[in-house]
């Protein structure tokens, strides 16, 4: 038995030597894996880059498997996704893995970027590593957007329309760009084909090459040491200090530091698998038929914040912001390591960096949250589905009740809520009469303003009269009605009788 084992070892060693003599890669790779790294960076904070790479591998494998069935043409794509979901064994699980893997990958890439930023690891000599990393971030987002198009449903169709509409705002080349993106005059076969090409060939190729360069530079410069307050990065001394630190405290990256990477990668993969198993695949939603207009298109999670920002920009700022902000943002990220290549690395000594991350994270969070329930969108069926609360109809005159009917009929509820039900585009009307006088309500209804359309053409005088008399009853908990102080003053000056405004308002009975 012992002899057999010995023979086996000898044979294995011989095979290795034969292979390595011809390949010449295994020893250099093993050496690279075991390179010494400062012991202070063997931290749980340093595991996100490798986890992102592992997720990329998962995406490549699941993507290839999905491509075995997926059909990238508009008349078959949606059906082939449903076939994957329902007719192919485990097809749903592959779709779920790919979809959840994409969400996890974006999250991990962002966390990795924030960690590198807060640790000041982008500074000399790792500037180019950061710049390539920005490229990898943009390509990851590019994969997410093109991937959303691959799930060729209503959201994908109208998402393409939104993309084309944004591109159309670019001066001079707008029209050409729209045709370039769509591959023709309309969203169709050519559009899906080119997004398939981008998603499956172009971006993954660039992404893998970029990861290769990124990892190469990590190996070349070493994983950044743990930042210490007061230990400044100087181009003249940093590399010597780093090598001294490595010589003094160095541990082999594999296995002494990499076990944390490996463990975290396994945990992340397990999390993706669990989400895929328990929550299943994303969509596809409704079929991509542009004549089905009963739809409220929404982008995937990673782009919800952009969708929200686009709702809040005033019309006159929309195009400038859309065209200038991304350029400035990306240029800022690319130039960051060149501008701040030296100096303090520790977050405790970089308050602006911490503030920036906090503000950006909170803003993205808020906009994403808003994007999940889109308060700016009219609720298209509220007028027919959300009744006027009965408490607003008790003890009302026939005219006032008629006004409640007008309120429903004229679809006011699509934008205005009563008792929490209805749209959020305009203010809730529960206490409108405490904010506006009768005259002001009439004016607001007929002329609009402040983002409300004018209803002068949609209401006849009797409808207006009824509507306004109903609205005048809406003073939650019988608060005092709104009073136009200036009317009192006008009245007073007409009569030449000085009268204090307080006396005027107290004269009004609720």
């Amino acid at each position, binding site marked *: 038995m012992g002899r057999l084992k010995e023979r086996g070892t000898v044979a294995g060693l011989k095979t290795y030597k034969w292979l390595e003599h011809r390949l010449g890669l295994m020893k250099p790779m093993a050496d690279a894996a075991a390179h010494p790294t400062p012991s202070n960076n063997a931290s749980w904070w340093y595991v996100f880059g490798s986890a992102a790479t592992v997720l990329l591998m998962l995406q490549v494998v699941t993507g290839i498997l999905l491509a075995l069935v997926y059909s990238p043409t508009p008349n078959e794509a949606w059906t082939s996704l449903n076939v994957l979901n329902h007719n192919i064994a485990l097809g749903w699980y592959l779709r779920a893995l790919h979809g959840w893997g994409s969400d996890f990958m974006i999250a991990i890439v962002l966390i990795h970027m924030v960690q590198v930023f807060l640790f000041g690891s982008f500074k000399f000599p790792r500037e180019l590593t950061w710049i390539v990393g920005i490229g990898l971030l943009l390509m990851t987002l590019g994969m997410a957007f093109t991937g959303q198009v691959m799930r060729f449903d209503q959201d994908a169709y109208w998402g393409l329309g939104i993309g084309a509409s944004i591109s*159309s705002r670019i001066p001079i080349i707008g029209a050409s760009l729209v045709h370039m993106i769509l591959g023709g005059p309309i969203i*169709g076969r050519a559009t899906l084909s080119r997004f398939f090409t981008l998603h499956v060939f172009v971006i993954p190729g660039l992404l893998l090459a970029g990861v290769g360069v990124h990892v190469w530079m990590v190996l070349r410069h070493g994983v950044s040491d743990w930042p210490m307050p007061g230990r400044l990065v100087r181009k003249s001394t940093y590399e010597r200090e780093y090598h001294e630190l490595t010589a003094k405290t160095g541990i082999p990256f594999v296995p002494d530091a990499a076990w944390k990477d490996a463990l975290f990668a396994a945990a992340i993969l397990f999390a993706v698998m669990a989400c895929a198993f328990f929550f299943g695949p994303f969509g596809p939603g409704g079929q991509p038929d542009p004549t089905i207009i009963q739809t409220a298109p929404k982008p995937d999670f990673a782009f919800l914040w952009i969708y929200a920002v686009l*709702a809040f920009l005033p019309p006159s700022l929309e195009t400038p912001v859309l065209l200038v902000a991304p350029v400035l943002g990306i240029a800022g990220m690319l130039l960051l390591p060149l501008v701040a290549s030296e100096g303090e690395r520790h977050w405790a000594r970089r308050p602006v960096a911490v503030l920036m991350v906090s503000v950006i994270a909170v803003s993205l969070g808020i906009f994403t949250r808003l994007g999940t329930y889109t308060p700016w969108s009219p609720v298209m069926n509220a007028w027919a589905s959300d009744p006027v609360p009965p408490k607003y109809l008790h003890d009302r005159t026939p005219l006032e009740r008629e006004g409640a009917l007008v309120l429903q009929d*004229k679809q006011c509820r699509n934008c205005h809520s009563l008792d929490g039900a209805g749209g959020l585009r305009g203010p809730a009307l529960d206490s409108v009469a405490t904010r506006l006088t009768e005259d002001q309500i009439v004016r607001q209804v007929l002329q609009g303003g402040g983002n409300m359309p004018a209803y002068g053409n949609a209401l006849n005088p009797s409808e207006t009269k009824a509507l306004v008399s109903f609205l005048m009853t809406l003073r939650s908990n019988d608060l005092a009605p709104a009073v136009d102080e200036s009317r009192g003053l006008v009245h007073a000056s007409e009569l030449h009788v000085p009268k204090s405004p307080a006396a005027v308002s107290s004269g009004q009975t609720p």
Partner: protein
Amino acid sequence: MSEFLNYPGESSNDDLQPEGKAAAHTRRAFLFKVAVGLNALVGAVLAVPLIGYLLGPVTKRGSDVGSWISIGAVSDFPVGETRLVDFKSPVASFGDGETAKVACWVRRVSAQQFQVFAINCAHLGCPVRWFSESKLFLCPCHGGAYYEDGSRASGPPERGLFEYKYKIAGNSLVIHSGDMPTLATQASCKEKPLVQIEPATGETRSTTWEG
């Protein structure tokens, strides 16, 4: 890498005597440079048709795209009403499937006068819906609103709805359809300058109703 290909100043040739430098300019080095130049030339000639192929969709002029298409009998549209009409895009090609279908809103203003609106919101292209009671088109994406004549009512759009050119041929309503309408590709739509509408200001609100 051959030492002859180093950049000036980096080359180890710089240390050589003039005779050595002359010797370094060998026939092979010259031929290599010629071959590299030849590759650049061939590459350029090769690239032209490839780029031309890639830019194919761009080179077509917007006004050439599209054609007139009948979307129904005039008598199908009652005066004063706005109706949704589906048609197959005249510029659709093979394999477009359902995406070849287009919807538009047809408003019959009077016996001979129509307005045909694109379904796409002028903001970011989402499909607008018509609400006949409030006489508004509402967009589900960002809440853009338009009046019955297509003009901007409120929300993020900076202009009114895109309109198709139309004509009445016999008893059928014919529109000119081509490009998907966006701010830049309105060629198949009614010529209408892009007007930047000022957001609602306090001034417009202060024109009092009582006035």
